[in-house]
């Protein structure tokens, strides 16, 4: 079954979507969209470093993403610039340094487009093993960290006072983000990873009455977007990564239409709360 490149793409894409769903919810709740973007963009610097020093690609991408997020935390503590401006500086400069480094290395030929926009149709069995293995690790960690993460999203102070160690949860969450970026880079590409984090989570919001349900729905909606996007890309002969993001966007727009289940549920909730 996995002999077919299309089936491999489907299995890999669904694996990534299931993983990005719950993480994406936290990105949305904690308003970390730009932060996720910055970590993703730094992945290209990781790619360049891996080529330059002949290191494992995944490991270097992961390490650079972690380093950038730690650097960001450090700079935020100094409070010299707003978080917004710092993110803008780090996001684009890491991407630019990565591009410049790659251009310098005339001895290697790499398909830059594959890194930037993904190359899901070239997924191998090893990639699938990595995506599902890594994805299960990420999901297990999210389940384990669920209560501290949700509690500190609502209030860092309550979480700290009541012994949930929010700082540790936040740090581990960053490692998980870096891991997800490293394993999903090949599927949707560096520039589009944040879309797969945010759009399914935002879509799931309309249908969810609890954080837990929103996380599960985000995974399922992401998987649906992968399936729809891949079939669309096959049918219209469009690039697969962007097609997945377009499919996710269409699902989001669909969820906004009046009369959809989410809107009715919300209207009912509003009536129930304030009679």
């Amino acid at each position, binding site marked *: 079954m996995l002999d077919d490149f299309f089936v491999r793409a489907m299995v890999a894409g669904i694996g990534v979507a299931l993983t990005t769903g719950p993480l994406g919810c936290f990105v949305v709740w904690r308003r970390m969209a730009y932060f996720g973007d910055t970590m993703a963009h730094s992945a290209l610097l990781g790619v360049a470093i891996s080529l330059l020093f002949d290191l494992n690609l995944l490991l270097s991408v992961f390490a650079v993403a972690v380093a950038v997020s730690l650097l960001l935390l450090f700079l935020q503590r100094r409070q010299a610039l707003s978080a917004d401006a710092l993110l803008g500086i780090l996001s684009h400069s890491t991407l630019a340094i990565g591009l410049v480094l790659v251009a310098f290395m005339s001895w290697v030929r790499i398909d830059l487009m594959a890194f930037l926009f993904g190359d899901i149709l070239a997924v191998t069995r090893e990639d699938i093993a990595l995506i599902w293995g890594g994805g299960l690790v990420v999901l297990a960690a999210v389940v384990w960290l669920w*209560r501290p993460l949700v509690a500190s999203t609502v209030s*860092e*102070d*309550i979480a700290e006072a*009541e012994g*949930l160690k929010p700082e540790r949860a936040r740090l581990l969450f960053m490692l998980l983000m870096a891991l997800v970026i490293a394993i999903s880079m090949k599927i949707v590409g560096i520039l589009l990873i944040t879309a797969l984090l945010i759009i399914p989570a935002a879509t799931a919001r309309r249908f969810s009455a609890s*954080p837990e349900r*929103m996380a599960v729905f985000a995974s399922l909606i992401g998987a649906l977007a992968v399936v729809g996007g891949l079939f669309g890309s096959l049918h219209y002969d469009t690039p697969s990564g962007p097609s997945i993001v377009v499919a996710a966007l269409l699902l989001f727009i669909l969820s906004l239409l009046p009369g959809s289940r989410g809107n009715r549920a919300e209207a009912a909730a509003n009536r129930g*709360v304030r009679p």
Partner: protein
Amino acid sequence: MLMDTRAGPQGRNQLVELRQAGIRRSGRWLVRGVDLSIGRGEILTLIGPNGAGKSTTAKLVTGVLRADEGTVQRAEDLRIGYVPQKLSIDWTMPLTVRRLMRLTGRLADDDLTDALSATGIAHLVEAEVRHLSGGEFQRALLARAIARKPDLLVLDEPVQGVDFAGETALYDLIRDIRKTTGCGILLISHDLHMVMAGTDTVICLNGHVCCRGTPEAVSRSEDYQRLFGGNARGLAVYSHRHDHTHLDDGRVLHGDGSITDHCHPGDGHHDHDHHQEHDHHGHDHHGHDHATPAGEGNRHA
């Protein structure tokens, strides 16, 4: 160094103790030299003007902030229930009151319902938190904190946004909780009228501990009777004028123009016999007047 001289089980049942604790941020002391201790079954109320360091002191007690100076000791495995002063939940997180109640730990359905009934919002259990009014939200936060059955309740202005009748009911509830569960309570009030009658000790903060004492002493005092007369039930405040200012480096500028390292009563810099001059019903939190407990418990750190 301040010692609690009242007889009682404080030594054995001490939940938390601050000694000369201070917090410094960007070269400025938010609060400094705070001595306080809370024991089981004890209610301690912090009052003081805006920016006096009340919330900062509460965060020292809960461990949200670490002291830059002095020590903070907490009993082992101290279980805290915390209602912070400010809390904003992003509307993108779907959160019902039921889910909020289980924010930091498991909770049996019966305990959940009991706590919500106690704060008067049992009917809102399935409501989304973002649709609650300010007062309802405070009740939900209070219910969440007490449902944990904590050893120490830390309530930072727990009745903000609650209507007047509800305010009294919630203060009664807080007193009941102390009686039934025997937990210690740290209560912060910016409303100088509402110092609970059940309070054991009141500490007046203004960047440091200005004074402290029992509200019972206040209620019996002549000043208090004159100020509040027959309407004084449940209220226990009196007022004094701030005759000194705290400088950024922690030194004290006195009304007479002198500067000392600390402020001590009876050092000739203070002026304390003007209680009856103040209008308690039109007090200004930004001004220099503020209320403190009166009587013999009035001591300076």
